[in-house]
C-alpha cells in the first residue's frame, strides 16, 4: 500500500515536474513577444539556457519569421504558412491551436543581430542531436560566430562525439569559442594553432577580430595566424581572377555566338539580336510559370525544359523575321541595320506591353544554388559553373553541326559561293532562312542562361548587343573559333583590369584596346573568307 502510494506520489511529482517544465518553456516562449530587440535577445538566451529541445523549432520559426504574437493576450504562436487566417501551432506542444485572422496577430520580428544570437543558441541546443549533419551544422555555426558561451557545452559534446568529421569540426568550434572566452592564454594559443589549420576567410576574420581586442601574447599570435591565412588565400587570387574571366567570357560568348552566325556567316547586321536573347529569357520565364502551375513536382527542372522551348520559340521567330524582312534586304547592310533596329524596338515594346515593365523572377533551381569550395581560397559559384558548361556544350555542338552535318555543309556552301551552291541544287533561299533561324535559336538559349545572372526585363537584350558585336568583330567575322577567342580574351582582360582600374575605367580601357587592335587588324583575330568579307 505504501509502495503504491509512493509510486503514485512519484508519478504525480514527475507529472508536476514535466508540467512545470512545459509551463516554463511556454513562459520563455511568450517572453519573446513583447518588448524591443534587446529584451528579445535576453529571452532567446533564457530559452537556450533552458536546454529544452522544444526550443529549437521555436527558434527556427523565429528565424524564418513565422513566430507571431496574439495582440489581445500577448501569447506567442508559430504559424503554419502564409495563409490568412493563419493556422496557429502551439510552440510548446506542437499541437494545432486553431486559426486567427492575420490582423489580430503581430509578427515577432528579428534583426541581423538577433539572427546571429539565434544561430549560436541553436548551435548549443543541437550539439547533441542524434543526426550527424545537424551536429556538424551546430558546430559550424559556433565556429563561425566564435560564441564564448558554448565552451562548456562543446567540451561535453566533444567527449560524447563518435563521428570523426563531426569531432574535427567540434574541436575547431571549441578553439573558436575558447578564443573569445576567459580561458588562460595557453589554451588560447593552442586554439590559434588549431584555427590556423582551418584557413578559410571566416576563421581569418575571427582571428583578426581577436587580434584587435586581445592582450599580448594572444594578440600577436592571432595577428600572425590571421596574416598567414590571408596570404594563403591571396595566392589563389590569380586563379580566381582567371576563373572570373572565363565565366564572364562564356557569358559574352553565349550572347555573341548566335550573332557569329547571322552577322559572321551571313553578313546580316542584326540589331534585334539582343531582343531575341530577351525573348529567350522570357520563354524561360513562361516555361517556369507553366511548369510550376501544372507539374509542381518538376519545378526544379523547369529551366532544363525551357532550353528546347526557348530554342524553338526564338528559332521560329528568327525564321519569320528572315522570311518577312531580311530576305528583301540582302546586300543592303545599312537598310538591314535600320530595319532590324526598328524591329528591336517593336519587340521590346511588345514584351513590355505583354509582361509589364517590371522584372520577372526566374528562380534558380536548387542544383544551381550556392557554391563549391575547391580550396579555402577558391570557391566557385554553381550557377557560373553551369553557365560555362552550357556554353561549352552549345559551342561544340554548333561546331559539330557546321562542320559535320549536311545542313552545315549547305550553309557553308551558300555562304561561300551562292551561285555555285544553287547550281548544285541547294535551295539557297531556304538555307538562308534556316541559318538565320539557327542563329536566333542560339540567341534564345543565351537568354535562358542569362536569366540566372541578370534580370529578366524588356531591356535585357540592349545590355548585350554592343558586347556581342564587339566580340564578333574583335574575334574575326565569320569564324567560330575567333568568336571563342574574342569572348575569352575580353572576359579575362576585363577581370584582370577590374581590380586595378575599377569597373568603369576597366571597360573604357578594353574598348580603347579593341579599337586600336581593329585599326591594326581590321578583320579581327581570325579572318576568314565569306560573303561578307569578299566585297
Amino acid at each position, binding site marked *: 500500500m505504501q509502495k503504491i502510494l509512493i509510486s503514485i506520489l512519484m508519478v504525480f511529482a514527475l507529472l508536476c515536474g514535466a508540467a512545470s517544465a512545459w509551463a516554463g518553456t511556454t513562459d520563455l516562449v511568450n517572453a519573446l513577444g513583447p518588448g524591443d530587440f534587446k529584451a528579445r535577445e535576453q529571452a532567446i538566451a533564457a530559452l537556450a539556457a533552458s536546454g529544452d529541445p522544444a526550443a529549437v523549432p521555436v527558434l527556427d520559426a523565429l528565424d524564418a*519569421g513565422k513566430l507571431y504574437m496574439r495582440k489581445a493576450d500577448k501569447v506567442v504562436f508559430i504559424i503554419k504558412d502564409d495563409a490568412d487566417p493563419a493556422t496557429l501551432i502551439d510552440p510548446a506542444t506542437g499541437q494545432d491551436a486553431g486559426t486567427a485572422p492575420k490582423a489580430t496577430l503581430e509578427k515577432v520580428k528579428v534583426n*541581423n*543581430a538577433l539572427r546571429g544570437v539565434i544561430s549560436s543558441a541553436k548551435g548549443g541546443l543541437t550539439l547533441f542531436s542524434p543526426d550527424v549533419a545537424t551536429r556538424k551544422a551546430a558546430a559550424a555555426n559556433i565556429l563561425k560566430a566564435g560564441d564564448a558561451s558554448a565552451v562548456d557545452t562543446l567540451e561535453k559534446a566533444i567527449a560524447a562525439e563518435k563521428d570523426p568529421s563531426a569531432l574535427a569540426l567540434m574541436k575547431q568550434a571549441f578553439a573558436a569559442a575558447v578564443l573569445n572566452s576567459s580561458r588562460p592564454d595557453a589554451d588560447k594559443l593552442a586554439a590559434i594553432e588549431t584555427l590556423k589549420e582551418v584557413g578559410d576567410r571566416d576563421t581569418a576574420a575571427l582571428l*583578426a577580430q581577436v587580434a584587435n581586442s586581445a592582450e599580448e601574447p594572444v594578440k600577436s599570435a592571432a595577428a600572425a595566424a590571421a596574416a598567414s591565412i590571408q596570404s594563403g588565400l591571396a595566392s589563389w587570387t590569380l586563379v580566381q581572377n582567371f576563373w572570373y574571366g572565363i565565366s564572364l567570357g562564356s557569358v559574352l560568348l553565349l550572347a555573341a555566338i548566335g550573332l557569329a552566325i547571322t552577322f559572321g556567316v551571313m553578313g546580316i547586321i542584326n540589331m534585334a539580336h539582343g531582343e531575341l536573347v530577351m525573348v529567350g529569357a522570357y520563354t524561360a520565364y513562361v516555361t517556369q510559370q507553366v511548369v510550376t502551375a501544372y507539374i509542381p513536382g518538376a519545378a526544379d527542372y523547369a529551366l532544363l525544359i525551357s532550353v528546347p522551348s526557348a530554342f524553338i520559340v526564338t528559332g521560329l521567330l528568327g525564321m519569320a523575321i528572315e522570311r518577312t524582312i531580311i530576305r528583301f534586304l540582302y546586300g543592303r547592310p545599312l537598310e538591314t541595320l535600320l530595319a532590324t533596329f526598328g524591329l528591336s524596338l517593336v519587340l521590346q515594346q511588345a514584351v513590355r506591353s505583354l509582361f509589364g515593365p517590371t522584372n520577372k523572377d526566374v*528562380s534558380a533551381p536548387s542544383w544551381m544554388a550556392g557554391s563549391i569550395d575547391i580550396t579555402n581560397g577558391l570557391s566557385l559559384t554553381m550557377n557560373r559553373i553551369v553557365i560555362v558548361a552550357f556554353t561549352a556544350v552549345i559551342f561544340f555542338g554548333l561546331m559539330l553541326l557546321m562542320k559535320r552535318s549536311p545542313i552545315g555543309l549547305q550553309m557553308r556552301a551558300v555562304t561561300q559561293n551562292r551561285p555555285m551552291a544553287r547550281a548544285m541544287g541547294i535551295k539557297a533561299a531556304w538555307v538562308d532562312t534556316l541559318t538565320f533561324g539557327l542563329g536566333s535559336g542560339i540567341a534564345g538559349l543565351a537568354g535562358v542562361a542569362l536569366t540566372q545572372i541578370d534580370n529578366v526585363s524588356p531591356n535585357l537584350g540592349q545590355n548585350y548587343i554592343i558586347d556581342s558585336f564587339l566580340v564578333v568583330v574583335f574575334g574575326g567575322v565569320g569564324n567560330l573559333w575567333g568568336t571563342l577567342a574574342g569572348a575569352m580574351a575580353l572576359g579575362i582582360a576585363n577581370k584582370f583590369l577590374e581590380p586595378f582600374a575599377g569597373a568603369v575605367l576597366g571597360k573604357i580601357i578594353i574598348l580603347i584596346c579593341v579599337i586600336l587592335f581593329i585599326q591594326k587588324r581590321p578583320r579581327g583575330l581570325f579572318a576568314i573568307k565569306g560573303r561578307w568579307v569578299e566585297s
Partner: protein
Amino acid sequence: MGMPQFAFAAGETIKVGILHSLSGTMAISETTLKDVMLMLIDQQNAKGGLLGKKLEGVVVDPASNWPLFAEKARELISKDGCVATFGCWTSVSRKSVLPVFEELNSLLFYPVQYEGEESQKNVFYTGAAPNQQAIPAVDYLAAQGVKRWVLAGTDYVYPRTTNKILETYLKDILKVAPEDIMINYTPFGHSDWQSIVSDIKKFGSAGKKAAVVSTINGDANVPFYKELGSQGVKATDIPVCAFSVGEEELAGIDKKPLVGHLAAWNYFMSVDTPINAAFIKDWQTYTKNPKRVSNDPMEAHFIGFNMWVEAVTKAGTTDTDPVLDAIIGVTVPNLTGGYSAMLPNHHITKPVYIGEIQESGQFDIVWQTPGLVAGDEWSDFLPGSKDLISDWRKPMSCGNFNVKSGKCGGAT
C-alpha cells in the same frame, strides 16, 4: 455632399501634368508613379474635384531620355496648360527640367530620394534628402557595430554626391579611418559582379564588422543581389543597406538568400497603419491586381498631391505665385500614421525607417527615428554647403542664402 460629381462646372477642368518615363530603362520604376497619380486624381474627382472643377491628368512619355524631359515639361506647361506637374525620377532628369519650370514659373513635385545640394523656387522635394535617408542609415549600422564601410554605387550624380557626404560624415563625425572605407563605382546596368562581391568579402574579413551602403540604382541591383546570394554573403555577416531598392525592385529577385539585407526609406508597404491599409487596398483595386506592391516614391506623390490640393484650396486659385505662398506650412497625413509638413526650403518632414528584407519581398521595420526629420537641402557635412540655408518665404525668398556672408546666391 451625397453626389459630388454634380458639382463640376461644365467644360472646365484643371490640368495636372504627369511626367514619368513609360519606356526605356526607367520605365520599370516610373510607370507605377504614373498610375498612382492617375489614381489620386480619380479619387480627388470622386471627392468633388478642386475649386469646383474636375482634375485631369495629362500623361506624357519622356522615354528615359533626359533632354526629352525638358521638352515634354515645356509641352505640358505651355501647350496643355498644366498648372502643376508631378514627375521625374533620376536626378539628371530633374536637373534637365529645372530651367523650364523656372522660366515658365510652374510647379514641379519631385517624389524620389535624391542627393540634396539643391533648392529651387518652383520645385517641391517630397522624397528624402540625404539627412532623411543616408545619414540615419549609417547611424543605424554604426550602432549595430559596423566599423568598416563599403560605399558602392552606380557611376552618376546621385551616388557620387551622396557618397561624398557619407565619406565626410564617416571620417569627421564617426571617426572612421580611411583604410576602413572602400568606395566602388560601377556603370549603369552593370551585370558582372563576381570580382566586386568577392572584393567585398575580402574587405569584410579583416576582423571588424563590415557593411555595404548601396547607392546602386536600377537594373544593376538584380545581378548584384543574385551574386551576393550565390557567393553566400549573408546579412548576418556583411549587411547591405540600399537606398534605392524598394518593394518594386525586389519583385524580380529570389528573396531567400537576401533575408536580412537592409533598406532605408521613409515608407514601407508593411507599415501597419489604417491609412496605409486603405491606400494599399485602393491601389490594388485601382490596378485590378491584388498582388501589386506600394513603395516610398508612391507615398511621396501621395503627400505631394495632397499638399498641392490643400494649398490650392487655401489660395483659392491654381496660379503659381499664390500657391507657392500658400503651400509652405501645409501639413497633410502621410501613410505611416503621422503628418508631413512643407518646410520653407521646399522639403518636407518625414520619419525614417530601416527595414530588413523578408522572404515575402516585404520589409520588416527594425528601426525608426523617434520623430519626424526635416529635409535638409544643403548638407551640414560638405564644405561650401555648410553655411547655406534656403527659405522661400518673403522677404528672404532665396534658395542658397549664405549665413556667413549674409548674401543670397553662390555656394561659396
